[in-house]
Each structure stands twice: as C-alpha cells, then as structure tokens.
C-alpha cells in the first residue's frame, strides 16, 4: 500500500504542475535484464526463479515520455516525467528434448521527477531521476516441444513497483533536439542502459 501512496503523490504532483515552462517528448530504447516490471507471481524474478535456476530474463525496453519542465533555478532544471513503455524479454534453457522458453511482454506506465545540472561539463547536461513504474497489461508464455501455456497478465501487474533511480546525460545536438544516455538501477534486475532522443516542444 505504501507504493500506492507514493504513486498517488507522484500523480498529484503531475496534476498540480501548473508551473510548466516548455515541455519535451522523449523516446528511449534500452536493454533489460532480470525483472524490471515484477508481477505478483515473481516467476520471472532472478530471486524466485525456480523454473530457470541461475538464469534471468533478457530483452528490450522501449518507452516514450512526456516531460513537463519547470522554470530553471540557476543552472538547475527539473521536470516531471510521464511515460508509456513496453518490455519484451525471455529466458530459455536447453535440454536433450529441445528448449524450454518463457516469453513475456509487458506494457507499463511510469511517472517520476528529474533534475539536471546544465553546466557541470561543457555541452553536457547531467542529471538524476526517480521514477516509478506500473505494469498495466501483458502476456506471458511458457513453451517447450511438448506444448505451451499462456496467460494474459492483468490484475497481477497492478502493484506499483518500487521506484528506481536513474542517471541521465543529455547532449544537445540542435537547439531543440538532444540525445540522451541513461543508466537505471532497478530493484529486481541489473542496471539498465538506455539511449534516447528528446525534442523540446512549445508549452501545450
């Protein structure tokens, strides 16, 4: 329930962000290992994985975010983050009969806060962000040569995940366009590395 409360606070902050300056759209692509969007079964978790002992899920993560930027204070800028993303990952193990494979695809929303310093390193904006993810839909399939089972994930994804901390380096390549490199530290998986692009749009 604590995670729900934190999520509410983030949402309230977003709703009350009446001080928005100029917003941005950001698209990110990264590799994910482990279980960045845990569900309540934890079948894909590195810690609880009894079907694939010693292995973890590996896949790709793509997301689009809307950044509601605040007025800069000195060299610091900040933004609320609202995002929608999708993770596809799988884990497999081979045996003499073939391959046992677990595939998972999950759609999630995320919300958080970002702060950046624009002058620590010339031409590079360095910052940190605290973001909370929440799965909203997905599908998981377990298959082997003798058959498969499939499940549509829904209610088991509804628990908000613990927030993750991320670091972001932004390099402006054009007046309104920048490229990003990010590292994120999830609770149930290893660090995730991401690249992305951000485009500044007028305040809508």
């Amino acid at each position: 329930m604590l995670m729900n409360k934190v999520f509410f606070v983030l949402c309230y902050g977003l709703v009350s962000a009446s001080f928005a300056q100029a917003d941005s759209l950001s698209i990110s692509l990264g590799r994910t290992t482990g279980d960045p969007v845990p569900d309540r079964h934890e079948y894909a978790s590195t810690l609880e994985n009894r079907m694939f002992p010693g292995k973890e899920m590996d896949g790709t993560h793509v997301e689009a975010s809307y950044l509601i930027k605040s007025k800069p204070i000195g060299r610091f800028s900040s933004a609320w983050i609202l995002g929608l993303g999708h993770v596809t990952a799988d884990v497999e193990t081979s045996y003499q009969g073939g391959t046992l494979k677990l595939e998972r695809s999950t759609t999630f929303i995320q919300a958080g806060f970002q702060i950046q310093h624009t002058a620590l390193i010339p031409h590079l904006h360095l910052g940190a962000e605290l973001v909370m993810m929440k799965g909203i839909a997905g599908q998981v399939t377990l298959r082997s040569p003798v058959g498969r089972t499939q499940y549509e994930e829904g209610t088991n994804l509804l628990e908000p995940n613990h927030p993750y901390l991320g670091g972001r380096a932004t390099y402006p390549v054009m007046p309104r366009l920048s490229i990003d490199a990010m590292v994120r530290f999830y609770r149930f998986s290893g660090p995730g590395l991401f690249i992305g692009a951000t485009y500044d749009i007028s305040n809508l």
Partner: protein
Amino acid sequence: MISRIYSGSILALAIATSLATSLPTSRRAFNVGLYQVKSDCPNAQTEGRMTINFHTDSPTGREEQYMLSNGTLFGFPSNTLISGRVRDSDKGEETTSSDDARECRAILWETGADSGLFACYRGEELECTIHLQKI
C-alpha cells in the same frame, strides 16, 4: 492542455488499479478432471490421458494434495501432486511433484488452471517436460 489530460488519465488509472489490488487472492491449483498429457521424458509414454483427483488439504491450509491416475507413466516421479501456496506471501506459488531423483515444477498463473507445463529437473539439470491440457 495535453499535459493536463495526461495527468488526469494517470490519476484515474492509479485510483482504479489501487482499488483492484485490494481484491483478495486465492491459492492456485489445477482443476480436477481428465487431462491430455504430452511428455518427452526418457522411458516414458509420450502421449495419453490421466486424471487429477483432489486428495487432501495440508494441516496448515497452505497446500493441497492431488492424486494423478497414472502420472508416473508420463515421467512424474510419483502420483502425488502438491499444489498451493509454498510461501506465506502471495508470491511464488507453484505446483510440484517430486521425489529424490526428479522434481517436476510448474507455474500456475490462474486459480483453477486447465493447462500447465512441468519442467522436470534431475538435480540442476533440466531433463524433460510434461504438458497437461484439460479435456
């Protein structure tokens, strides 16, 4: 304007999902009945039918035992299937059938499962798989 719409949507979704997460959870197990079975276990029947019958509750109420009509024919190490909540939390529920030599594990996603895929391990090594589909 668009940011307000986004924010409102997120808040509404948060409320709806928070309400949904307060719903009670149940133990997960196979439904009793007749199943079509496929197996690639060594020295086992590759295809056939078997029945899952409810046997007993555990004294702690955390597990249930089911009897398989002829599970050993397909590679199960015994005809006893243990199903239910393995840990105290809602997490990590699974079904196993085991003895000292081979342990078969399945992930059950639903409260009353009609299908499942067992991964049978001998020690740390995956030896074979068994698929059940209710008829």
